[in-house]
Protein backbone atom coordinates (compact mmCIF):
# COMPACT_ATOMS: atom_id res chain seq x y z
CA UNK A 1 0.00 0.00 0.00
CA UNK A 2 1.16 3.53 -0.58
CA UNK A 3 2.81 5.28 2.33
CA UNK A 4 2.99 9.05 2.52
CA UNK A 5 5.66 10.14 0.00
CA UNK A 6 8.35 12.68 0.67
CA UNK A 7 6.60 15.91 -0.27
CA UNK A 8 8.26 19.31 -0.65
CA UNK A 9 7.17 21.55 2.25
CA UNK A 10 6.44 24.35 -0.12
CA UNK A 11 4.15 22.00 -2.02
CA UNK A 12 2.37 21.14 1.20
CA UNK A 13 1.59 24.78 1.74
CA UNK A 14 0.51 25.15 -1.84
CA UNK A 15 -1.81 22.15 -1.82
CA UNK A 16 -3.49 22.89 1.49
CA UNK A 17 -3.83 26.60 0.85
CA UNK A 18 -5.16 25.67 -2.55
CA UNK A 19 -7.99 23.81 -0.83
CA UNK A 20 -9.18 27.15 0.52
CA UNK A 21 -9.42 28.50 -3.00
CA UNK A 22 -10.70 25.97 -5.48
CA UNK A 23 -12.80 23.01 -4.31
CA UNK A 24 -14.68 20.86 -6.80
CA UNK A 25 -18.15 21.86 -8.01
CA UNK A 26 -19.80 19.29 -5.71
CA UNK A 27 -18.83 21.49 -2.77
CA UNK A 28 -21.25 24.22 -3.75
CA UNK A 29 -24.02 21.74 -4.54
CA UNK A 30 -23.80 20.12 -1.12
CA UNK A 31 -23.65 23.51 0.55
CA UNK A 32 -26.81 24.66 -1.23
CA UNK A 33 -28.73 21.50 -0.30
CA UNK A 34 -27.68 21.82 3.33
CA UNK A 35 -28.80 25.43 3.64
CA UNK A 36 -32.19 24.46 2.18
CA UNK A 37 -32.53 21.74 4.80
CA UNK A 38 -31.66 24.24 7.53
CA UNK A 39 -34.30 26.65 6.26
CA UNK A 40 -36.91 23.90 6.36
CA UNK A 41 -35.89 23.08 9.92
CA UNK A 42 -36.25 26.68 11.02
CA UNK A 43 -39.74 26.79 9.56
CA UNK A 44 -40.71 23.58 11.35
CA UNK A 45 -39.42 24.88 14.67
CA UNK A 46 -41.30 28.15 14.24
CA UNK A 47 -44.51 26.21 13.63
CA UNK A 48 -43.91 24.06 16.70
CA UNK A 49 -43.10 27.13 18.77
CA UNK A 50 -46.44 28.71 17.91
CA UNK A 51 -48.68 25.67 18.07
CA UNK A 52 -47.15 23.86 21.01
CA UNK A 53 -45.17 20.66 21.19
CA UNK A 54 -48.16 18.57 20.26
CA UNK A 55 -47.43 19.09 16.59
CA UNK A 56 -44.33 16.96 17.06
CA UNK A 57 -46.78 14.10 17.73
CA UNK A 58 -45.21 13.23 21.03
CA UNK A 59 -47.69 12.24 23.73
CA UNK A 60 -48.06 10.56 27.05
CA UNK A 61 -46.15 8.27 27.67
CA UNK A 62 -43.86 9.30 24.82
CA UNK A 63 -42.74 12.54 26.40
CA UNK A 64 -39.36 12.22 24.72
CA UNK A 65 -38.59 11.05 21.25
CA UNK A 66 -36.56 11.94 18.21
CA UNK A 67 -35.20 15.20 19.56
CA UNK A 68 -33.49 13.41 22.39
CA UNK A 69 -32.24 10.58 20.21
CA UNK A 70 -30.74 13.13 17.85
CA UNK A 71 -29.18 14.88 20.81
CA UNK A 72 -27.44 11.66 21.84
CA UNK A 73 -26.47 10.92 18.26
CA UNK A 74 -24.74 14.25 17.71
CA UNK A 75 -23.02 14.28 21.08
CA UNK A 76 -21.82 10.80 20.27
CA UNK A 77 -20.47 11.82 16.91
CA UNK A 78 -18.39 14.51 18.56
CA UNK A 79 -16.37 12.03 20.55
CA UNK A 80 -14.15 10.39 18.00
CA UNK A 81 -12.74 13.77 16.98
CA UNK A 82 -11.32 14.20 20.44
CA UNK A 83 -10.31 10.57 20.51
CA UNK A 84 -8.29 10.86 17.31
CA UNK A 85 -6.63 14.13 18.17
CA UNK A 86 -6.10 13.83 21.92
CA UNK A 87 -5.60 10.12 22.52
CA UNK A 88 -3.51 9.54 19.44
CA UNK A 89 -1.61 12.71 20.24
CA UNK A 90 -0.72 11.43 23.69
CA UNK A 91 0.25 8.10 22.21
CA UNK A 92 2.27 9.75 19.39
CA UNK A 93 0.46 8.00 16.60
CA UNK A 94 1.93 9.69 13.56
CA UNK A 95 -0.83 8.84 11.15
CA UNK A 96 -3.28 11.09 12.98
CA UNK A 97 -1.49 14.17 11.73
CA UNK A 98 -3.11 14.72 8.34
CA UNK A 99 -6.65 14.06 9.59
CA UNK A 100 -7.02 15.28 13.14
CA UNK A 101 -7.83 18.84 12.09
CA UNK A 102 -11.13 18.06 10.41
CA UNK A 103 -11.86 15.47 13.08
CA UNK A 104 -11.70 18.20 15.69
CA UNK A 105 -13.78 20.51 13.55
CA UNK A 106 -16.34 17.72 13.33
CA UNK A 107 -16.31 17.44 17.12
CA UNK A 108 -16.99 21.11 17.57
CA UNK A 109 -19.77 21.34 15.03
CA UNK A 110 -21.56 18.20 16.11
CA UNK A 111 -21.63 19.59 19.65
CA UNK A 112 -23.07 22.83 18.32
CA UNK A 113 -25.70 20.77 16.50
CA UNK A 114 -26.44 18.63 19.53
CA UNK A 115 -26.85 21.69 21.74
CA UNK A 116 -29.90 22.69 19.72
CA UNK A 117 -32.00 19.69 20.58
CA UNK A 118 -32.55 20.10 24.31
CA UNK A 119 -33.66 23.63 23.50
CA UNK A 120 -35.99 22.70 20.66
CA UNK A 121 -37.64 20.03 22.77
CA UNK A 122 -38.47 22.36 25.69
CA UNK A 123 -42.15 23.05 26.22
CA UNK A 124 -41.50 26.70 27.01
CA UNK A 125 -38.38 27.60 25.10
CA UNK A 126 -38.79 31.23 26.02
CA UNK A 127 -37.94 30.33 29.63
CA UNK A 128 -34.77 28.53 28.69
CA UNK A 129 -32.65 30.89 30.77
CA UNK A 130 -34.08 29.43 33.96
CA UNK A 131 -31.80 26.48 33.42
CA UNK A 132 -28.73 28.67 33.85
CA UNK A 133 -27.43 29.29 37.36
CA UNK A 134 -27.72 33.04 37.73
CA UNK A 135 -28.35 34.77 41.01
CA UNK A 136 -31.84 36.22 41.21
CA UNK A 137 -33.90 38.01 43.79
CA UNK A 138 -36.06 34.92 44.31
CA UNK A 139 -33.07 32.71 45.14
CA UNK A 140 -34.44 30.10 42.82
CA UNK A 141 -31.75 28.11 41.10
CA UNK A 142 -31.63 25.33 38.59
CA UNK A 143 -31.85 21.96 40.22
CA UNK A 144 -28.35 20.53 40.16
CA UNK A 145 -29.69 17.08 40.92
CA UNK A 146 -31.11 16.85 37.46
CA UNK A 147 -28.97 15.01 34.93
CA UNK A 148 -30.17 17.56 32.43
CA UNK A 149 -28.19 20.16 34.38
CA UNK A 150 -25.16 17.90 34.28
CA UNK A 151 -25.66 17.68 30.54
CA UNK A 152 -25.75 21.43 30.29
CA UNK A 153 -22.51 21.88 32.21
CA UNK A 154 -20.77 19.00 30.45
CA UNK A 155 -21.73 20.23 27.03
CA UNK A 156 -20.68 23.76 27.82
CA UNK A 157 -17.30 22.58 29.06
CA UNK A 158 -16.86 20.22 26.17
CA UNK A 159 -17.81 22.77 23.55
CA UNK A 160 -15.49 25.47 24.89
CA UNK A 161 -12.58 23.12 25.55
CA UNK A 162 -12.70 21.40 22.20
CA UNK A 163 -13.09 24.75 20.47
CA UNK A 164 -9.94 25.95 22.24
CA UNK A 165 -8.14 22.73 21.44
CA UNK A 166 -9.01 23.12 17.79
CA UNK A 167 -7.97 26.75 17.77
CA UNK A 168 -4.63 26.33 19.56
CA UNK A 169 -3.70 23.48 17.25
CA UNK A 170 -4.48 25.72 14.31
CA UNK A 171 -2.39 28.77 15.24
CA UNK A 172 0.81 27.83 13.31
CA UNK A 173 -1.24 27.03 10.22
CA UNK A 174 -3.10 30.30 10.60
CA UNK A 175 0.30 31.97 10.55
CA UNK A 176 1.05 30.25 7.25
CA UNK A 177 -2.30 31.39 5.85
CA UNK A 178 -1.56 34.89 7.08
CA UNK A 179 1.69 34.88 5.20
CA UNK A 180 0.06 33.81 1.96
CA UNK A 181 -3.38 35.37 2.04
CA UNK A 182 -4.66 38.67 0.73
CA UNK A 183 -7.65 40.92 1.40
CA UNK A 184 -10.15 40.06 4.13
CA UNK A 185 -8.58 36.68 4.64
CA UNK A 186 -5.30 38.43 5.42
CA UNK A 187 -6.98 40.51 8.12
CA UNK A 188 -8.80 37.51 9.53
CA UNK A 189 -5.77 35.26 9.68
CA UNK A 190 -3.40 37.88 11.09
CA UNK A 191 -5.97 38.56 13.79
CA UNK A 192 -6.38 34.88 14.63
CA UNK A 193 -2.73 33.87 14.35
CA UNK A 194 -1.85 36.27 17.20
CA UNK A 195 1.48 37.10 15.59
CA UNK A 196 2.84 33.60 15.57
CA UNK A 197 6.29 33.53 14.06
CA UNK A 198 7.44 30.04 14.91
CA UNK A 199 10.11 31.17 17.35
CA UNK A 200 11.62 28.44 19.48
CA UNK A 201 9.90 29.53 22.70
CA UNK A 202 6.55 29.70 20.93
CA UNK A 203 7.00 26.19 19.67
CA UNK A 204 7.95 24.84 23.09
CA UNK A 205 5.09 26.57 24.93
CA UNK A 206 2.75 25.48 22.16
CA UNK A 207 3.68 21.85 22.45
CA UNK A 208 3.35 21.86 26.25
CA UNK A 209 -0.04 23.55 26.16
CA UNK A 210 -1.28 21.27 23.45
CA UNK A 211 -0.37 18.14 25.36
CA UNK A 212 -1.79 19.48 28.63
CA UNK A 213 -5.07 20.25 26.94
CA UNK A 214 -5.02 16.81 25.37
CA UNK A 215 -4.74 15.37 28.87
CA UNK A 216 -7.88 17.24 29.89
CA UNK A 217 -9.85 16.42 26.81
CA UNK A 218 -9.70 12.66 27.11
CA UNK A 219 -11.39 12.42 30.54
CA UNK A 220 -13.75 15.21 29.53
CA UNK A 221 -14.91 13.40 26.43
CA UNK A 222 -15.48 10.23 28.43
CA UNK A 223 -17.38 12.14 31.10
CA UNK A 224 -19.62 13.93 28.62
CA UNK A 225 -21.23 10.89 27.12
CA UNK A 226 -21.35 9.11 30.45
CA UNK A 227 -23.38 12.04 31.70
CA UNK A 228 -25.64 11.96 28.69
CA UNK A 229 -26.07 8.28 29.45
CA UNK A 230 -26.99 9.14 33.01
CA UNK A 231 -30.02 11.04 31.70
CA UNK A 232 -31.33 7.55 31.20
CA UNK A 233 -29.39 5.51 33.71
CA UNK A 234 -30.44 7.84 36.53
CA UNK A 235 -34.11 7.50 35.65
CA UNK A 236 -36.40 4.76 36.87
CA UNK A 237 -37.75 3.67 33.51
CA UNK A 238 -37.27 0.00 32.69
CA UNK A 239 -34.40 -0.48 30.24
CA UNK A 240 -33.19 3.06 30.88
CA UNK A 241 -32.14 2.39 34.43
CA UNK A 242 -29.11 0.33 33.42
CA UNK A 243 -25.70 0.39 35.07
CA UNK A 244 -23.78 -0.36 31.93
CA UNK A 245 -25.21 2.60 30.06
CA UNK A 246 -22.31 5.08 30.47
CA UNK A 247 -19.65 2.81 28.96
CA UNK A 248 -22.19 1.59 26.44
CA UNK A 249 -22.90 5.16 25.36
CA UNK A 250 -19.21 6.07 25.18
CA UNK A 251 -18.46 3.05 23.05
CA UNK A 252 -21.39 3.82 20.81
CA UNK A 253 -20.25 7.42 20.58
CA UNK A 254 -16.75 6.50 19.48
CA UNK A 255 -18.21 3.98 17.07
CA UNK A 256 -20.52 6.35 15.27
CA UNK A 257 -17.85 9.08 15.46
CA UNK A 258 -15.24 6.94 13.72
CA UNK A 259 -17.79 6.10 11.06
CA UNK A 260 -18.43 9.81 10.62
CA UNK A 261 -14.69 10.44 10.30
CA UNK A 262 -14.46 7.88 7.55
CA UNK A 263 -17.31 9.54 5.72
CA UNK A 264 -15.79 12.99 5.97
CA UNK A 265 -12.36 11.57 5.18
CA UNK A 266 -13.54 10.31 1.85
CA UNK A 267 -15.55 13.44 1.16
CA UNK A 268 -12.70 15.85 1.84
CA UNK A 269 -10.25 13.67 0.01
CA UNK A 270 -12.45 13.92 -3.02
CA UNK A 271 -13.68 17.50 -2.73
CA UNK A 272 -10.38 19.12 -1.87
CA UNK A 273 -8.11 16.70 -3.74
CA UNK A 274 -6.16 15.58 -0.68
CA UNK A 275 -5.23 12.21 -2.16
CA UNK A 276 -1.57 12.70 -1.24
CA UNK A 277 -2.22 13.43 2.38
CA UNK A 278 -5.22 11.31 3.26
CA UNK A 279 -3.65 8.12 2.07
CA UNK A 280 -5.15 4.66 1.85
CA UNK A 281 -2.68 3.70 4.54
CA UNK A 282 -4.37 6.06 7.00
CA UNK A 283 -7.82 4.88 5.97
CA UNK A 284 -6.68 1.35 6.68
CA UNK A 285 -5.64 2.36 10.17
CA UNK A 286 -8.90 4.17 10.90
CA UNK A 287 -10.86 1.19 9.63
CA UNK A 288 -9.02 -1.13 11.99
CA UNK A 289 -9.67 1.25 14.88
CA UNK A 290 -13.36 1.45 13.97
CA UNK A 291 -13.60 -2.30 13.76
CA UNK A 292 -12.12 -2.69 17.23
CA UNK A 293 -14.54 -0.15 18.70
CA UNK A 294 -17.44 -1.80 16.89
CA UNK A 295 -16.62 -5.02 18.64
CA UNK A 296 -16.49 -3.30 22.02
CA UNK A 297 -19.89 -1.72 21.40
CA UNK A 298 -21.40 -5.01 20.31
CA UNK A 299 -20.09 -6.72 23.39
CA UNK A 300 -21.65 -4.10 25.66
CA UNK A 301 -24.90 -4.21 23.73
CA UNK A 302 -25.30 -7.94 24.05
CA UNK A 303 -24.10 -8.05 27.62
CA UNK A 304 -26.90 -5.57 28.33
CA UNK A 305 -29.45 -7.89 26.74
CA UNK A 306 -27.99 -10.79 28.65
CA UNK A 307 -28.05 -9.00 31.97
CA UNK A 308 -31.70 -8.06 31.44
CA UNK A 309 -32.57 -11.59 30.44
CA UNK A 310 -30.86 -13.28 33.33
CA UNK A 311 -31.86 -10.70 35.93
CA UNK A 312 -35.39 -11.67 34.84
CA UNK A 313 -36.77 -8.33 35.99
CA UNK A 314 -40.41 -8.24 34.94
CA UNK A 315 -40.40 -4.70 33.60
CA UNK A 316 -37.09 -4.74 31.74
CA UNK A 317 -37.74 -8.15 30.26
CA UNK A 318 -41.05 -6.91 28.93
CA UNK A 319 -39.29 -4.02 27.21
CA UNK A 320 -36.65 -6.30 25.75
CA UNK A 321 -39.29 -8.58 24.31
CA UNK A 322 -41.25 -5.65 22.97
CA UNK A 323 -38.06 -4.35 21.38
CA UNK A 324 -37.43 -7.55 19.53
CA UNK A 325 -40.94 -8.57 18.52
CA UNK A 326 -42.98 -5.51 19.43
CA UNK A 327 -44.05 -2.70 17.10
CA UNK A 328 -40.57 -1.21 17.07
CA UNK A 329 -38.92 -4.35 15.72
CA UNK A 330 -37.87 -2.77 12.40
CA UNK A 331 -35.81 -0.20 14.27
CA UNK A 332 -34.10 -2.69 16.53
CA UNK A 333 -33.38 -5.28 13.89
CA UNK A 334 -32.28 -2.55 11.51
CA UNK A 335 -29.79 -1.40 14.12
CA UNK A 336 -28.46 -4.90 14.65
CA UNK A 337 -28.09 -5.37 10.92
CA UNK A 338 -26.33 -2.06 10.28
CA UNK A 339 -24.12 -1.80 13.34
CA UNK A 340 -23.48 -5.39 14.31
CA UNK A 341 -23.35 -7.37 11.07
CA UNK A 342 -22.15 -4.78 8.57
CA UNK A 343 -18.85 -3.80 10.28
CA UNK A 344 -17.47 -7.31 9.80
CA UNK A 345 -16.80 -6.28 6.22
CA UNK A 346 -13.90 -4.27 7.64
CA UNK A 347 -12.18 -7.51 8.56
CA UNK A 348 -10.99 -7.73 4.94
CA UNK A 349 -8.02 -5.68 3.82
CA UNK A 350 -9.31 -5.27 0.29
CA UNK A 351 -12.46 -3.75 1.67
CA UNK A 352 -10.62 -1.51 4.10
CA UNK A 353 -8.54 -0.07 1.32
CA UNK A 354 -11.40 0.67 -1.02
CA UNK A 355 -12.34 4.28 -0.38
CA UNK A 356 -15.86 4.18 -1.76
CA UNK A 357 -16.71 0.88 -0.15
CA UNK A 358 -15.66 2.34 3.16
CA UNK A 359 -17.68 5.45 2.41
CA UNK A 360 -20.87 3.43 1.92
CA UNK A 361 -20.15 1.24 4.94
CA UNK A 362 -19.56 4.27 7.14
CA UNK A 363 -22.93 5.69 6.10
CA UNK A 364 -24.61 2.38 6.89
CA UNK A 365 -22.96 2.21 10.30
CA UNK A 366 -24.08 5.74 11.15
CA UNK A 367 -27.62 4.92 10.12
CA UNK A 368 -27.45 1.92 12.41
CA UNK A 369 -26.21 4.02 15.29
CA UNK A 370 -28.93 6.58 14.69
CA UNK A 371 -31.51 3.81 14.89
CA UNK A 372 -29.79 2.62 18.04
CA UNK A 373 -30.40 6.00 19.65
CA UNK A 374 -34.04 5.89 18.64
CA UNK A 375 -34.51 2.42 20.09
CA UNK A 376 -32.89 3.54 23.31
CA UNK A 377 -35.47 6.30 23.77
CA UNK A 378 -38.80 5.09 22.41
CA UNK A 379 -39.51 1.40 23.12
CA UNK A 380 -39.03 1.65 26.91
CA UNK A 381 -41.57 4.46 26.97
CA UNK A 382 -43.90 2.45 24.76
CA UNK A 383 -44.07 -0.41 27.27
CA UNK A 384 -43.40 1.20 30.62
CA UNK A 385 -44.31 0.23 34.16
CA UNK A 386 -48.00 1.00 33.65
CA UNK A 387 -49.63 -1.39 31.15
CA UNK A 388 -52.60 0.88 30.81
CA UNK A 389 -50.54 3.62 29.18
CA UNK A 390 -48.72 1.40 26.72
CA UNK A 391 -48.75 3.06 23.35
CA UNK A 392 -46.78 3.35 20.16
CA UNK A 393 -45.91 6.62 18.50
CA UNK A 394 -43.87 7.23 15.38
CA UNK A 395 -42.23 10.64 14.99
CA UNK A 396 -44.22 13.03 12.81
CA UNK A 397 -43.14 15.29 9.98
CA UNK A 398 -42.07 18.12 12.27
CA UNK A 399 -39.64 15.95 14.14
CA UNK A 400 -38.34 14.41 10.93
CA UNK A 401 -37.85 17.81 9.30
CA UNK A 402 -35.89 19.13 12.24
CA UNK A 403 -33.80 15.97 12.26
CA UNK A 404 -32.97 16.39 8.59
CA UNK A 405 -32.22 20.05 9.25
CA UNK A 406 -29.72 19.08 11.93
CA UNK A 407 -27.77 17.03 9.40
CA UNK A 408 -27.88 19.94 6.99
CA UNK A 409 -26.74 22.36 9.67
CA UNK A 410 -23.80 20.18 10.63
CA UNK A 411 -22.60 19.61 7.10
CA UNK A 412 -23.02 23.28 6.26
CA UNK A 413 -20.91 24.43 9.17
CA UNK A 414 -18.30 21.79 8.42
CA UNK A 415 -17.95 22.66 4.76
CA UNK A 416 -17.71 26.38 5.53
CA UNK A 417 -14.97 25.60 8.02
CA UNK A 418 -13.03 23.63 5.45
CA UNK A 419 -13.40 26.50 3.02
CA UNK A 420 -12.09 29.10 5.44
CA UNK A 421 -9.50 27.21 7.48
CA UNK A 422 -6.90 24.66 6.46
CA UNK A 423 -8.57 21.32 7.01
CA UNK A 424 -5.22 19.53 6.95
CA UNK A 425 -2.64 20.53 9.54
CA UNK A 426 0.25 21.77 7.43
CA UNK A 427 2.91 22.04 10.10
CA UNK A 428 2.15 18.60 11.44
CA UNK A 429 2.36 17.07 8.00
CA UNK A 430 5.67 18.85 7.61
CA UNK A 431 6.87 17.28 10.84
CA UNK A 432 5.66 13.94 9.52
CA UNK A 433 7.69 14.40 6.34
CA UNK A 434 10.64 15.71 8.34
CA UNK A 435 10.75 12.61 10.47
CA UNK A 436 10.46 10.36 7.43
CA UNK A 437 13.52 12.16 6.02
CA UNK A 438 15.43 11.77 9.25
CA UNK A 439 14.78 8.06 9.24
CA UNK A 440 15.77 7.58 5.61
CA UNK A 441 18.89 9.77 6.07
CA UNK A 442 20.01 7.77 9.09
CA UNK A 443 19.63 4.51 7.18
CA UNK A 444 21.78 5.87 4.30
CA UNK A 445 24.57 6.79 6.72
CA UNK A 446 24.42 3.32 8.22
CA UNK A 447 24.80 1.80 4.74
CA UNK A 448 27.94 3.91 4.10
CA UNK A 449 29.49 2.74 7.36
CA UNK A 450 28.90 -0.86 6.38
CA UNK A 451 30.71 -0.38 3.02
CA UNK A 452 33.65 1.26 4.79
CA UNK A 453 34.03 -1.67 7.18
CA UNK A 454 33.90 -4.17 4.39
CA UNK A 455 36.60 -2.21 2.49
CA UNK A 456 38.79 -2.24 5.63
CA UNK A 457 38.34 -5.97 6.10
CA UNK A 458 39.29 -6.48 2.48
CA UNK A 459 42.54 -4.52 2.96
CA UNK A 460 43.32 -6.51 6.10
CA UNK A 461 42.67 -9.63 4.17
CA UNK A 462 45.12 -8.54 1.48
CA UNK A 463 47.72 -7.69 4.10
Amino acid sequence: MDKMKDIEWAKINKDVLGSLESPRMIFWVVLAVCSLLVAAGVAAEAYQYNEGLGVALMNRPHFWQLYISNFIFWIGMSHSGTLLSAVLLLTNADWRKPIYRFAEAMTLFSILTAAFFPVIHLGRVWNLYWVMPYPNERTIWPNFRSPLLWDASAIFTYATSSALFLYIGMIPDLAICRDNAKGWRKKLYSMLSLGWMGRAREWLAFRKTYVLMGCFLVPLAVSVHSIVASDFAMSIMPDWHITSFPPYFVAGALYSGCAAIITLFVMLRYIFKFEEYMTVDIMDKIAKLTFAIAMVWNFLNFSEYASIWYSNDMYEKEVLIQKLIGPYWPVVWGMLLCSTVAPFAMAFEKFRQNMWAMFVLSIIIQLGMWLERFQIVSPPLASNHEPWTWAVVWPGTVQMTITAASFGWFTMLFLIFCKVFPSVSMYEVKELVFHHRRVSARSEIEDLDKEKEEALRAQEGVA
Partner: protein
Amino acid sequence: MRKKNLKFLFALYEDFDRARDAVAELKILDLKETAVEDIELYSPIEHPEVEEILGEIHQPIQRFTFFGAITGAICAFLLVAAAAQSMFTVQPQGGKAVIPIPADLVITYEGTILFGVWITLLGFFVYSGIPRRLTRLYSRKVSEDQIGIEVQVTPEHADAVRSTLEKSGALEIREV
Protein backbone atom coordinates in the same frame (compact mmCIF):
# COMPACT_ATOMS: atom_id res chain seq x y z
CA MET B 1 18.39 43.74 28.94
CA ARG B 2 18.01 45.05 25.42
CA LYS B 3 20.43 47.98 24.91
CA LYS B 4 20.19 51.03 22.71
CA ASN B 5 21.62 51.27 19.18
CA LEU B 6 21.67 47.50 18.74
CA LYS B 7 21.78 46.01 15.28
CA PHE B 8 19.40 43.19 14.27
CA LEU B 9 20.55 40.57 11.79
CA PHE B 10 18.22 37.98 10.33
CA ALA B 11 19.48 35.09 8.27
CA LEU B 12 17.53 32.37 6.50
CA TYR B 13 18.76 28.76 6.09
CA GLU B 14 17.34 26.02 4.00
CA ASP B 15 17.28 23.45 6.76
CA PHE B 16 17.68 23.03 10.48
CA ASP B 17 21.16 21.42 10.46
CA ARG B 18 22.68 24.40 8.69
CA ALA B 19 21.03 26.76 11.11
CA ARG B 20 22.39 24.75 13.99
CA ASP B 21 25.97 24.95 12.62
CA ALA B 22 25.53 28.68 12.19
CA VAL B 23 24.54 29.13 15.80
CA ALA B 24 27.50 26.98 16.88
CA GLU B 25 29.90 29.15 14.91
CA LEU B 26 28.36 32.32 16.35
CA LYS B 27 29.07 30.91 19.77
CA ILE B 28 32.67 30.20 18.76
CA LEU B 29 32.93 33.88 17.77
CA ASP B 30 32.48 34.59 21.44
CA LEU B 31 31.22 38.17 21.34
CA LYS B 32 30.77 39.54 24.83
CA GLU B 33 27.47 41.26 24.09
CA THR B 34 25.95 38.36 22.34
CA ALA B 35 24.34 36.16 24.94
CA VAL B 36 22.39 33.13 23.94
CA GLU B 37 19.18 35.02 24.63
CA ASP B 38 19.99 37.39 21.87
CA ILE B 39 19.81 34.64 19.31
CA GLU B 40 16.25 33.80 18.25
CA LEU B 41 15.49 30.82 16.05
CA TYR B 42 12.46 30.78 13.72
CA SER B 43 11.26 27.46 12.32
CA PRO B 44 8.22 26.21 10.33
CA ILE B 45 7.95 23.11 12.54
CA GLU B 46 8.93 22.27 16.06
CA HIS B 47 12.51 21.14 16.78
CA PRO B 48 12.65 19.78 20.32
CA GLU B 49 16.46 19.64 20.23
CA VAL B 50 16.60 23.43 19.86
CA GLU B 51 17.14 23.75 23.59
CA GLU B 52 20.49 21.99 23.23
CA ILE B 53 21.85 24.88 21.21
CA LEU B 54 19.93 27.81 22.60
CA GLY B 55 20.07 26.58 26.12
CA GLU B 56 17.22 25.84 28.63
CA ILE B 57 13.96 27.78 28.07
CA HIS B 58 11.97 27.83 31.36
CA GLN B 59 8.16 27.48 30.79
CA PRO B 60 6.27 26.06 33.85
CA ILE B 61 2.82 26.07 32.16
CA GLN B 62 1.73 22.97 34.06
CA ARG B 63 1.63 25.07 37.24
CA PHE B 64 -1.03 27.23 35.67
CA THR B 65 -2.94 24.12 34.77
CA PHE B 66 -2.74 22.74 38.28
CA PHE B 67 -3.80 26.02 39.83
CA GLY B 68 -6.66 26.35 37.35
CA ALA B 69 -7.95 22.87 38.03
CA ILE B 70 -7.98 23.42 41.79
CA THR B 71 -9.76 26.78 41.49
CA GLY B 72 -12.25 25.23 39.11
CA ALA B 73 -13.08 22.45 41.51
CA ILE B 74 -13.55 24.81 44.43
CA CYS B 75 -15.58 27.41 42.53
CA ALA B 76 -17.85 24.82 40.97
CA PHE B 77 -18.58 23.16 44.29
CA LEU B 78 -19.20 26.50 45.96
CA LEU B 79 -21.55 27.55 43.22
CA VAL B 80 -23.55 24.34 43.44
CA ALA B 81 -23.56 23.63 47.15
CA ALA B 82 -23.14 26.97 48.86
CA ALA B 83 -24.57 29.48 46.43
CA ALA B 84 -27.38 27.42 45.00
CA GLN B 85 -28.48 24.53 47.14
CA SER B 86 -28.05 26.03 50.57
CA MET B 87 -29.75 29.28 49.56
CA PHE B 88 -32.44 27.65 47.45
CA THR B 89 -35.97 28.69 48.30
CA VAL B 90 -37.44 25.22 47.76
CA GLN B 91 -34.67 22.70 47.61
CA PRO B 92 -35.76 20.01 50.10
CA GLN B 93 -37.13 16.95 48.39
CA GLY B 94 -38.66 13.87 49.89
CA GLY B 95 -36.13 11.20 50.64
CA LYS B 96 -33.19 13.16 49.29
CA ALA B 97 -30.59 15.40 50.87
CA VAL B 98 -30.43 19.11 50.14
CA ILE B 99 -26.77 18.93 49.17
CA PRO B 100 -26.28 15.60 47.40
CA ILE B 101 -22.57 14.81 47.10
CA PRO B 102 -22.76 12.57 43.99
CA ALA B 103 -24.70 15.07 41.97
CA ASP B 104 -22.48 17.94 43.00
CA LEU B 105 -19.36 15.96 42.20
CA VAL B 106 -20.37 15.77 38.57
CA ILE B 107 -20.61 19.54 38.29
CA THR B 108 -17.36 19.91 40.22
CA TYR B 109 -15.67 17.58 37.79
CA GLU B 110 -16.76 19.63 34.81
CA GLY B 111 -15.78 22.84 36.54
CA THR B 112 -12.31 21.47 37.18
CA ILE B 113 -11.74 20.73 33.55
CA LEU B 114 -13.24 23.98 32.34
CA PHE B 115 -11.03 26.17 34.49
CA GLY B 116 -8.06 23.88 33.91
CA VAL B 117 -8.28 24.35 30.18
CA TRP B 118 -8.80 28.09 30.27
CA ILE B 119 -6.01 28.86 32.67
CA THR B 120 -3.65 26.60 30.77
CA LEU B 121 -4.39 28.80 27.80
CA LEU B 122 -3.45 31.79 29.95
CA GLY B 123 -0.12 30.14 30.76
CA PHE B 124 0.45 29.55 27.08
CA PHE B 125 0.05 33.22 26.28
CA VAL B 126 2.26 34.25 29.17
CA TYR B 127 5.22 32.06 28.21
CA SER B 128 4.98 32.01 24.45
CA GLY B 129 4.98 35.78 24.36
CA ILE B 130 2.06 35.98 21.96
CA PRO B 131 -0.11 37.77 21.03
CA ARG B 132 2.42 40.24 19.62
CA ARG B 133 3.01 42.02 16.35
CA LEU B 134 5.44 40.63 13.77
CA THR B 135 9.07 41.74 13.91
CA ARG B 136 10.18 43.85 11.01
CA LEU B 137 12.68 41.24 9.91
CA TYR B 138 10.19 38.35 9.86
CA SER B 139 10.12 36.59 6.51
CA ARG B 140 7.22 34.52 5.24
CA LYS B 141 9.76 31.92 4.07
CA VAL B 142 9.97 30.82 7.71
CA SER B 143 6.36 29.71 7.73
CA GLU B 144 7.05 27.78 4.53
CA ASP B 145 10.17 25.69 4.62
CA GLN B 146 13.23 27.73 5.82
CA ILE B 147 14.84 28.31 9.20
CA GLY B 148 15.51 31.84 10.36
CA ILE B 149 18.11 33.08 12.85
CA GLU B 150 17.81 36.52 14.45
CA VAL B 151 20.88 37.97 16.17
CA GLN B 152 21.18 41.29 17.90
CA VAL B 153 24.65 42.75 18.17
CA THR B 154 26.38 46.02 18.79
CA PRO B 155 27.25 47.80 15.55
CA GLU B 156 31.01 47.13 15.82
CA HIS B 157 30.48 43.38 15.69
CA ALA B 158 27.88 43.45 12.99
CA ASP B 159 30.24 42.72 10.12
CA ALA B 160 31.89 39.78 11.90
CA VAL B 161 28.53 38.23 12.61
CA ARG B 162 27.27 38.85 9.12
CA SER B 163 30.30 37.19 7.57
CA THR B 164 29.92 34.24 9.92
CA LEU B 165 26.34 33.84 8.93
CA GLU B 166 27.21 34.05 5.26
CA LYS B 167 29.97 31.50 5.65
CA SER B 168 27.62 29.06 7.28
CA GLY B 169 25.49 29.25 4.12
CA ALA B 170 22.73 31.72 4.75
CA LEU B 171 20.43 32.09 1.74
CA GLU B 172 19.49 35.63 2.63
CA ILE B 173 20.47 38.14 5.28
CA ARG B 174 18.46 41.15 6.38
CA GLU B 175 19.36 43.76 8.93
CA VAL B 176 18.20 46.96 10.58
